[in-house]
């Protein structure tokens, strides 16, 4: 029991990661059900029967909610943040250990509440992870808008509070607990990622909480914040008891003010990790280190100014569309600067292709492919056509889901000795895992651009048996959809390799010396227990030497006397 309710940051980090692993397995299985239903609509789910449209929508909702909140927010920010961050800045613990444990158990509670929602009468919520009103604001609007929706709201509200608490902890830890010599410009880029993501969480999650409260009042207190006057659902006027000129657009503003920063909360720590891993295995300092810090912060700031690009087709003042379009396009600048730095770091080096390195390269690749469709969607006129199609699904699954997950895999392979106290994941299985995952990721999500361009809509339970020209258009996408579903199964199946690797390596993995990757940051200080004396950082991270004859050595932050002067190891 003492272990279960531990206040040790490493234990809490592991607990978060375990939660995220359970969540990602659940979310993946749900997505497989959806893909199966799309290509074989008549297939009957054992113990359940046919998948009705409302079932399909609840699958969409649960999949999105679980993946966004309990995987892409929880694993990088709370999981690896707790596990690695204190050691990486030379602190012995987080700033508020008990609060830390509390926020983990709140997160677990939020997940439990969410998982209970499919089992209530009327079933799980069907409004998508964005819960757009007015349907979500009216419990009697139909199946999936009743108690399941309330549980969804409760779950996300609890999650918001937990995430805010965790982010406050992260911020104070970074600001107050850095060890001697760990100045702001010596902080590893992962720490900058966690820092910016935590700032975004603190500012954005409370806006979500306010929006959830308003929605809850609409549902149960007779208000009309989001219910337009005279609102009809299936011929029934539901707005009667709700006075006022409520506007679903208000929800969209509040929700996306949170929702877009959420994307960066998920990806910023991964960007930092990628920089560090690429530098490590290329034996090079990160190119333009300070610029990378600046771009991280710039992405954070811009990230909260561009929520309106989710509303181009929802109805927005045209001038506002232009403003949001510009801020969205501007974010391509720091993002491109990051990509250039990644490429420049590995350019003409002799990289060590470990699995962590491969996954980081995969991250860069997916970040580029997924990112390229960003500026396309950022233009209101193009978004007009593409917004409710699978083109958008392709975009965010490549850049957010897949790039995010690739950075999580890179983190797992890279930091596994710290999770397992001195064992490595199998590199051989890791390679199989990487190549199959890369194949699966591209073959699953890239073709969605084409089905989207062909007009395949999002959130549609069934693509067959649609009359007229639309039906013809959609029928043409079916072969490609079959390919997507097959690839999705390959993608999911290749994760079994990862699970086997995890389970086996915890017990029987190759025992490793304390710093197997020759990393330079403090979490690799050569001992798997917490260092007894306070650490000190003597230099920036990622200092390596490669001589002309190919000999490599590295200068970790914790070593005091370096026989080699840093000037002489600047890039030759």
């Amino acid at each position, binding site marked *: 029991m003492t272990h279960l309710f531990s206040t040790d940051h490493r234990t809490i980090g592991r607990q978060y990661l375990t939660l995220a692993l359970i969540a990602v397995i659940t979310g993946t299985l749900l997505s497989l059900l959806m893909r199966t239903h799309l290509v074989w609509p008549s297939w009957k789910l054992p113990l359940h029967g046919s998948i009705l449209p409302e079932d399909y929508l609840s699958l969409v909702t649960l999949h999105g909610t679980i993946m966004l909140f309990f995987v892409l927010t929880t694993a990088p920010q709370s999981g690896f943040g707790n596990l690695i961050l204190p050691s990486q800045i030379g602190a012995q613990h987080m700033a508020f250990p008990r609060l830390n444990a509390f926020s983990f158990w709140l997160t677990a509670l939020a997940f439990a509440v969410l998982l209970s929602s499919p089992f209530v009468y009327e079933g799980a919520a069907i409004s998508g992870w964005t819960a757009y009103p007015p349907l979500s604001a009216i419990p009697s609007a139909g199946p999936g808008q009743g108690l399941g929706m309330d549980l969804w709201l409760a779950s996300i509200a609890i999650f918001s509070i937990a995430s805010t608490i965790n982010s406050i902890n992260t911020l104070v830890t970074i*600001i107050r607990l850095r060890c001697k010599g760990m*100045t702001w410009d010596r902080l590893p880029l992962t720490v900058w990622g966690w820092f910016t993501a935590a700032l975004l969480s603190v*500012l954005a999650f*409370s806006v979500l909480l306010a929006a959830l409260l308003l929605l809850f009042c609409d549902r149960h207190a007779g*208000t*009309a914040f989001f219910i337009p006057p005279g609102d009809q659902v299936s011929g029934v006027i539901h707005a009667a008891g709700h006075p006022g000129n409520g*506007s679903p657009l208000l929800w969209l503003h509040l929700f996306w003010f949170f929702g877009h920063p959420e994307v960066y909360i998920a990806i910023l720590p991964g960007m930092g990790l990628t920089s560090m891993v690429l530098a490590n295995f290329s034996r090079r300092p990160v190119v333009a280190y300070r610029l990378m810090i600046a771009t991280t912060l710039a992405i954070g700031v811009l990230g909260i100014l561009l929520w309106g690009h989710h509303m181009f087709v929802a109805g927005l003042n045209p001038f506002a569309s232009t403003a949001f379009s510009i801020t969205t396009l501007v974010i391509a600048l720091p993002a491109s600067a990051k990509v250039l730095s990644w490429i420049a770091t590995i350019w003409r080096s002799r990289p060590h292709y470990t699995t962590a390195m491969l996954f980081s390269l995969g991250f860069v690749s997916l970040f580029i492919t997924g990112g390229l469709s960003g500026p396309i969607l950022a233009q209101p006129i193009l978004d007009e056509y593409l917004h409710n199609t699978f083109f958008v699904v392709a975009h965010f699954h490549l850049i957010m889901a897949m790039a995010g997950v690739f950075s999580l895999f890179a983190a797992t392979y890279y930091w596994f000795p710290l999770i397992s106290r001195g064992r490595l994941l199998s590199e051989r299985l890791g390679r199989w895992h990487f190549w199959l995952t890369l194949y699966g990721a591209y073959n699953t999500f890239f073709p969605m651009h084409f089905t989207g361009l062909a007009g395949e809509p999002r959130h549609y339970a069934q693509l067959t048996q649609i009359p007229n020209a639309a039906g013809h258009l959609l029928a043409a996408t079916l072969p490609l959809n079959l390919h997507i579903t097959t690839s999705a199964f390959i993608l999911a199946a290749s994760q079994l390799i990862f699970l086997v690797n995890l389970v086996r390596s915890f017990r029987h993995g190759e025992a490793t010396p304390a710093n197997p990757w020759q990393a330079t940051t403090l979490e690799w200080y050569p001992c798997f227990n917490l260092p007894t004396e306070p650490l000190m950082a003597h230099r920036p991270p990622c200092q390596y030497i490669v001589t002309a004859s190919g000999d490599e050595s590295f200068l970790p932050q914790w070593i005091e006397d370096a026989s080699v002067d840093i000037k002489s190891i600047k890039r030759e």
Partner: protein
Amino acid sequence: MPSTITPINTERDKKRHLDDHEGGHGRRPPTDKRTGGGGDNDNWNDRPQGRRGPREKLSRARLGLFFALAGDLMFFVAIVSAFFVAQNSSHIDVYNRYVNQWLPTAIPPILWLNTAVLILSSVTMEVARRSMFRETDVMDEWLGIGKPLTRRVLPWLVATTALGLLFLAGQAVAWHQLNIQHVFFSSNPSSHFFYLITYTHAIHLFLGIGALIAALTALYASRLLETRQILIDCTAWYWHAMGLFWIFLFALLAFFQ
């Protein structure tokens, strides 16, 4: 060493270290900053870093509270934004009339009194907070000579709690008065916001009163002076923030309906 003595000047002036690189004033002299890590004249290590020393825990807790309050501010900002949106939205009805259903809620006059009570409670809270750091008392308390801190702080804390409860009671009276006039939560868009804002603020004050009670308990129950100081200090900042939030929310309800 007691964790509460006023830090010496060099410590208080945390950004500037008195050493051979600079005189404690102005910018760092233009020496080469990259001398090689750990070697002679390596002033990398003199850059600001995570602070250690007296009041470390206190400043940590305070910083955490300020981030929490920044988040909380965003919560109210979101609700106030919604207030202005709802106030200015309208629709065209079936008779082609322009309809705006916003009926300004006349605030009950007792809110003025409540506001005064809340401001007063902030004053008593600040007296309590400052007394907690009076150096001679802290020294006595730390050395175990009597309980001057407890004696000095207790009445002010009790006063703050009482004034806080009085404010909440006053709010309840205001809600009651509105109910008598048949202005309910769901009556019209303006009353939605009146109740929503006052309710959420009241919930915040309830939490504040919980914190006050915790601080009062800690005055007797906690043996660590630092814990008591942290509890009272953070409660005070929270309380001030809620007072400040209320002034803005009250101004919104009173003058911008």
